[in-house]
């Protein structure tokens, strides 16, 4: 019995040493907050940030705020309480998130924003976003070509509560509204998800069988529209979107989705972690606080080069 006790104590001491050694080798924890982990885009963001942070010697804490400002606030409080070294966040809202970011910065924790920006300058270490306007313009220009500059079309927006979706929609219209022979016969907000995209398309298609094209604010909505059109046997309708997930690539290769703009989700996340690391190690802030990354235009000619929101 005595031997067992000694062995158990020795094992406990050894594991304690092992834990401490691991803790000593870690540079601390980087918290990574994204909207949702079951959406391919946000999952890619989280995976990119986690991989980069761990490669740099940090532990990671990956959580989703579900686009809920209150929940995001709690995540920030928790991270501050845990004394994390830095926070990478795709924030829940561009205005309401200012206070949460400010709170972390006041606690000495640098915050890198990815994808969604906040409305105030000078608080976050860096704000890395996609050029949603350019992505929207590129996709709309191709949509115009595919439509032959005329015909009835539908716009399915991602989520008009999301500033990025609003920007994409504005970019669409800056292009499309210059073509008087292209007529938008319906517009519906599909909350950025596949099922509402399909349901919206189902009902719009019933009322407007003559539609020639559908321009979508993001990938899941576009895939939802395609599912609806396939059910209705309508493979003649032009569908375009924005995002660049693996599912979209498969759809492009199958000739269903005609074009998209790939948003560099992983690249933004990696750059965010690098900025935080640079600041923690050398006290250096990025040259510019707001940095835009281009959306890469994708069609059948280059869909093979995309995997997990990375362009190779």
């Amino acid at each position, binding site marked *: 019995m005595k031997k067992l006790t000694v062995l158990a104590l020795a094992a406990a001491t050894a594991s304690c040493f092992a834990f401490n050694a691991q803790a000593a080798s870690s540079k601390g924890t980087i918290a990574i907050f994204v909207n949702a982990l079951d959406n391919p885009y946000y999952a890619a963001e989280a995976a990119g940030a986690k991989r980069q942070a761990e490669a740099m010697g940090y532990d990671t804490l990956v959580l989703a705020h579900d686009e809920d400002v209150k929940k995001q606030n709690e995540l920030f409080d928790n991270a501050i309480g845990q004394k994390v070294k830095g926070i990478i966040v795709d924030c829940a809202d561009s205005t309401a998130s200012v206070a949460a970011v400010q709170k972390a910065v006041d606690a000495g924790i640098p915050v890198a924003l990815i994808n969604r920006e906040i409305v105030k*300058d000078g608080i976050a270490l860096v704000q890395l976003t996609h*050029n*949603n*306007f*350019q992505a929207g*313009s590129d996709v709309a*220009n191709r949509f115009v070509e595919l439509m032959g*500059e005329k015909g009835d079309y539908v716009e399915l927006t991602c989520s008009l509560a999301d500033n990025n979706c*609003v*920007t994409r929609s*504005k*970019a669409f219209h*800056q*292009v499309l509204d*210059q*073509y008087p022979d292209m007529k938008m016969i319906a517009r519906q907000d599909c909350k950025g998800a596949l099922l509402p995209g399909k349901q919206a398309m189902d009902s719009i298609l019933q009322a407007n069988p003559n539609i020639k094209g559908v321009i979508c604010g993001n990938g899941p909505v576009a895939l939802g529209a395609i599912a609806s059109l396939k059910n209705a046997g309508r493979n003649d309708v032009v569908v375009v979107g924005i995002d660049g997930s693996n599912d979209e690539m498969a759809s492009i290769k199958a000739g269903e989705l005609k074009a998209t703009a790939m948003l560099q989700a992983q690249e933004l996340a990696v750059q965010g972690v690098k900025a935080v690391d640079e600041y923690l190690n050398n006290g250096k802030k990025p040259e*510019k606080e*707001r*940095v*835009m*990354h*281009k959306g890469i235009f994708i069609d059948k000619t280059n869909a093979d080069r995309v995997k997990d929101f990375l362009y190779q």
Partner: protein
Amino acid sequence: MKKVVMLLTTWGVVSLLLCGFRIVTKEEFKQLQTPESPLLSQIAEIFDRDLTGQLRDSATDIDDLIELFSDPNADFGQLCTQYGYRQSPDIQCNFPVKLKGQIKSVNTQSRRGTLSVTTPKGAEVKVKIGPVVGDTALRDVLKSVSYLDFNDQTVYGEFGEKINAYCLKKLEGKAFEPGESIEVLGAFSSWDVPGSPSMIQIAPAELNK
């Protein structure tokens, strides 16, 4: 008493209108207090002074640029640094160019109307004549105004649209025929070395016959 109040109110409203006051909606009032960007109301000045001046100083002859592009070892990044301009490596490169050539054909079938122009060295490039320009080469080649002056993608997009609209306004009333000689000062955008000269589509800041 009621009549007096009504008369006074009517008199007040009429006086305000006659004095040049305008009643605005809440939204208009908000916009007047915080304009999206003062740069949006300075398009003519920015175009005529900054953009045209910059293009005159830095434009490369299109034939010379096409020759550089034709080198199989052409390094696009290096060519962009030397002959073009971009605000960051992440966006298209914008090349300021000048061109003297002869109109080969006029495409007005598409709203993105173009002239196909043969250069002195025999290459064929396109010059945009609208009514849709379809890109932002003129905005993006401009050095005096950048995205950082807006920090808002939509307003920056609007700025680009206004620059294009001003470009098209300068073309108003001009008709083009094959065989005519033209001189162009403008810019085009590209992500990479154009596959052929005909892929080059120049947005004109000046287009003279």
